[in-house]
């Protein structure tokens, strides 16, 4: 049973009332909001692992996802296989790329300042996107897949159902990551390394190896997300940039290391965005809503921390 304080109870009640009212007014706003939230959460959870658990600032997050998306695209095109099959080799490829990136660059700055990690991973992001630009050109690519247009009809309302793959993926990732961090030796080691690397080394944890595996695991997860992402969206070398930004914001909003809050935050943002879009002329306001909500949450949290 979840224990909530008075503030959380009121917030939960208000959220439930709002969702109910939106559902009565325009049910599809909730449907699309949940689908959108799933995508945000699926992209942000690997960052929550790397930034929230082992405290590596990775600005190449979206670009690694982009590499995963291209890998699946090219595998599908070349061998004529479904992206969900091509996802398997992509995960392995992304794991190896994660190890290579960590070993060649991030391992040198992992104990340094966050600013140096920021600049370093920004450089990696540029290298990845420009390399992909040279290989695949800037032309957007999209596989035509009949199942992504699947739909359901309730009364007069038709809506797409394929996009529910994102909330499902996010839920599976959350369960898997929580199990990994709480129940496995490596997961517990990762949490310890994130909290106190020096102390972890003293008690015999191989800190560098732990960092490397977590970074590579995060890259492999991004390979999964990129593969599912490319079934629905067009991909191009710069496609990852905006998702890096959104993931950072979600992890910051959730609080470092708080994986379930990443999902809840995504849900709030997804529903808020789709509700705004449901108003005539609201399409252009969704990005603004995203960042305004994040600023508001961070401000409220800092106010509460000061008053406690």
């Amino acid at each position, binding site marked *: 049973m979840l224990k909530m304080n008075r503030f959380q109870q009121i917030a939960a009640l208000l959220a439930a009332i709002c969702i109910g009212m939106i559902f009565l007014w325009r049910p*599809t*706003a909730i449907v*699309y909001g949940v689908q*959108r939230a799933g995508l945000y959460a699926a992209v942000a959870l690997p960052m929550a692992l790397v930034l929230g658990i082992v405290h590596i600032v990775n600005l190449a997050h979206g670009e690694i996802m982009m590499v995963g998306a291209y890998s699946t695209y090219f595998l599908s095109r070349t061998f004529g296989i479904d992206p969900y099959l091509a996802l398997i080799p992509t995960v392995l490829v992304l794991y190896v790329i994660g190890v290579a990136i960590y070993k060649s660059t991030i391992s040198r700055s992992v104990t340094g300042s966050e600013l140096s990690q920021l600049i370093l991973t920004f450089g990696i992001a540029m290298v990845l996107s420009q390399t992909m*630009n*040279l290989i695949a*050109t*800037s*032309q*957007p*690519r*999209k596989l*035509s897949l*009949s199942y*992504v*247009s*699947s*739909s359901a*009809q309730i009364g007069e309302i*038709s*809506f*797409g*159902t*394929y996009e529910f793959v994102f909330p499902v993926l996010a839920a599976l990732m959350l369960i898997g990551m929580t199990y990994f961090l709480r129940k496995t030796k490596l997961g517990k080691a990762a949490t310890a390394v994130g909290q106190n690397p020096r102390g972890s080394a003293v008690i015999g944890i191989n800190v560098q190896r732990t960092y490397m595996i977590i970074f590579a695991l995060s890259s492999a997860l991004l390979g999964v997300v990129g593969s599912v992402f490319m079934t*629905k*969206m*067009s991909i*191009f070398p*710069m*496609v990852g*940039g*905006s*998702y890096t*930004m*959104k993931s950072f914001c979600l992890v910051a909003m959730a609080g470092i290391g708080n994986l379930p809050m990443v999902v809840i935050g995504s849900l709030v943002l997804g529903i808020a965005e*789709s509700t705004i*879009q*449901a108003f*005539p*002329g*609201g*399409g*252009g306001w*969704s*990005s603004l809503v995203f960042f305004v909500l994040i600023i508001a949450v961070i401000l409220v949290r800092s106010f509460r921390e000061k008053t406690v």
Partner: protein
Amino acid sequence: MKKVLRFLGVLVLMAVFTMSIFATGEAEGGEEPIKFGGVWPLGDITGDQGSKAAQIAIDEINAAGGLLGRPVELIVIDSELSPEKGAAAIERLATIEDVDFFVGGMSSGVHLGQIPTLKKYRKITMWTGAASHTVEEAMGPNQEWYFHLHPWDYNQGASYVEGWDAIAERYPEIKTDRWFLAYEEGPFGTASFAATKALFADREIYGEPFQSAAAGGGDYTAVLERAKELEPDVFIWAAWEADALPLMEQSKAIDFNPPLYVGAPPGWPADFGESPLAENVTLYGMWAPSLNNVIDNSKQFYDNYVTTYNEEPATYFAPLGYSAIYVIAEAVERAGTLDQEALIAELKKSKYQSPMGEIITFSPSNIISNQGIRKQKILQWQNGMQEVIWPFEYSTAEPVYPFKPWKER
């Protein structure tokens, strides 16, 4: 060992010296080439294929004996879709490469950055891109050395009005009274919406912005639902190629079937036609491979391009790049000199039969003195091909109307 190394070193030096003599001898003995300086965004399909097509024209001219008895050469620099890099490319072509003409171009934003440098050197320029009227304003009047091939945005708009009026007249069953424009929230989309409202003032125009996939968006469901509620005769979207297929997929998912489904991106994804969702989508453009059936020049250009590069030209920037070289080459032949004044006079008299069908001539537009093409074409995806449905003199197929409902596909 040292003696052997020294001997080898002397041998290498002698070889380099001998080669440099031969190289110099060839340059002095042969004619200096006439140089075309091209600037395109090579990472984008428009620039990639535009520059490749221009190179085909250069190769054809050389194979036919060159110009004024001299070979021709194309030097291409990548603008990387950056105004700064585009301007630096013009600077380099004018100074280090010392080119005779400037050709190329795609984006209005990049071209705005290049205009001050172009004005500094005032070399004859044959520009294939940049539709925004702000570019024309920046270029200003009386720049006789500047020739603009691509229609301006107001030319395009007027052309669409003419086209839809003609289609509605010939096919009375096609209704175009009530429009819904879904547009990306950036300058391109908002300008398109404003222009549509102004140009089609006698029709009911509704519109709604969305965040393009190119800007981190890609969820069109809200805007599509609104369009579905309004039941327009024509649904048109103005955004980028990244939005093309996802828009169709989401339209199918929510069962949105407008009688006319029109897409107006600057370029289409290479594999869009392969998708069954592309069937009967209407689009704007200047050229498509289907024109090979009605225009001889188009077929010749197409065959040459496919033979040379083993790929199909997928954008009208390819025949535009090809035409830019030929328009200048024909003027040079007629003038018999590279003297700028004589050449400008000949360029103004141009009547070049382009692969796009139009005979390219130049006349003043709103501001500049030498505007080339003014008309767009209305096309429709049919069986994976872009078929021309207007202008009727170039039409390659009858329009399919109405857009086939998703449930019947």
